[in-house]
């Protein structure tokens, strides 16, 4: 596996790159269609029949605020066009039948690889979160409750854990809104610390899509919006996943 990883790293280095270009991945022909519509991306991303465990469901560790808001948005999935995104242990489960393009796909994959925000699986100890996505408005809401294993300053969530949560919501939103695949940049302004065990609501908007890049922003605040925890903006690279060829 390690040898294959190095092979992947070497092939990255050998891609044609313009000197001084900030992005190492080759540019696509701008006229090539990012044709997968949001609806088709969502339907592939949220399969009706799931044999994998969905971690974005209420459990005993969720605080009352989180449960209430979850119920509120669950109602909105029936009436206002919101969709609850499933959350699996690995990103590979989200993109079954697809793979990373341009030889970036790593052939061997251990079953115990986990997505960063599902790294701590004991209920309530790590990341407890659920993401609701609105396809036509290209925005998301994430309900996030950091557990005691995400501590930084005593009693408060580690800045990095919030950064990881924001990057994760960005990456799901960017993918469904426009096939954004890799984070190019993140700019986070921290305003206040999030107490461990409390609810933070992340409101995410796709600002614009141009030049093979997706510009996306987020505000993390308390439920009553009285306390802003952080503001973040990010840029994602648009890349289409490839169909896995049957062998």
């Amino acid at each position, binding site marked *: 596996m390690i040898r294959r990883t190095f092979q992947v790293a070497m092939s990255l*280095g050998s891609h044609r790159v313009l000197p001084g270009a900030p992005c190492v991945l080759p540019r696509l022909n701008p006229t090539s269609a990012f044709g997968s519509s949001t609806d088709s991306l969502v339907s592939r991303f949220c399969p009706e029949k799931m044999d994998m465990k969905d971690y974005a469901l209420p459990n005993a560790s969720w605080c009352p605020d989180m449960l209430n808001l979850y119920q509120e948005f669950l109602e909105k999935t029936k009436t206002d066009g919101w969709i609850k995104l499933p959350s699996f242990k690995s990103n590979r489960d989200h*993109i079954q039948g697809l793979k990373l393009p341009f030889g970036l796909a790593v052939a061997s994959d251990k079953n115990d690889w986990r997505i960063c925000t599902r*790294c701590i699986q004991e209920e309530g100890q790590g990341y407890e979160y659920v993401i609701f996505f609105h396809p036509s408005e290209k925005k998301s809401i994430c309900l996030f409750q950091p557990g005691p*294993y995400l501590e930084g300053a005593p009693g408060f969530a580690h*800045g990095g854990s919030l950064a990881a949560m924001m990057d994760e919501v960005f990456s799901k939103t960017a993918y469904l809104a426009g096939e954004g695949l890799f984070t190019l940049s993140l700019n986070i302004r921290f305003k206040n610390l999030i107490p461990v065990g409390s609810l933070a609501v992340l409101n995410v908007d796709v600002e614009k899509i141009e030049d093979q890049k997706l510009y996306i922003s987020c505000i993390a605040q308390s439920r009553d919006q009285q306390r802003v925890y952080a503001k973040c903006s990010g840029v994602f690279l648009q890349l289409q996943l490839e169909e896995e060829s049957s062998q």
Partner: protein
Amino acid sequence: MDLSLPNPSWSKDMRLLFDQFMKKSEDGSWKHLPSYKNKFSRRIEDIKVFFPDAKLIKEKISQAQLFPRNFEEGLGFEYAMFHNHAEDRTVCIFQGGPYLQGAPGFLHGGAIATMIDSTLGMTALIAGGIVMTANLNINFKRPIPLCSVVVINSQVDKVEGRKLFLSCNIRSVDEQTLYSEATSKNLCLFWVWFSLSYISLGFVFGV
């Protein structure tokens, strides 16, 4: 228990780098920084030295543990930091494990952000005492393969009153590949230091 020491999950590259920096530490120019899961564990050990008969009230000890140190060996963040006092910079050697995946086969952007925040935070802590990250700006140049080893070089760029401006870059072991660059602004919280001094000691000794 100091978690920034080699364990069986460390790859050959990681051990090599660690040994190189430990060698540099022999003449005192570099210093290895210890790292604990629970900031209070160090305090508990200090208490035991002076009060060997003291019985700890377990319920009062925080269940909480420092985020990057909450994984079994090799599964999450494996890292060690070294500080050069004369050059005022900190180097972190980092091996990201299989529980930090983003795109399949690569490290999650948020895991990279966590390590950048930890490294810059440590640099700021040494330079300015108790600090809080105000702003973090990261440019990702290349995806980092999962389970590979990278070197994070960080430094203080300037100090303006209570604000510290820092920057860092993430490179491959041979320094040929640049994975990310980041800048950060940290705020010194001196009023916290004076009013909550027992926590400040935890900050100084815990990473």
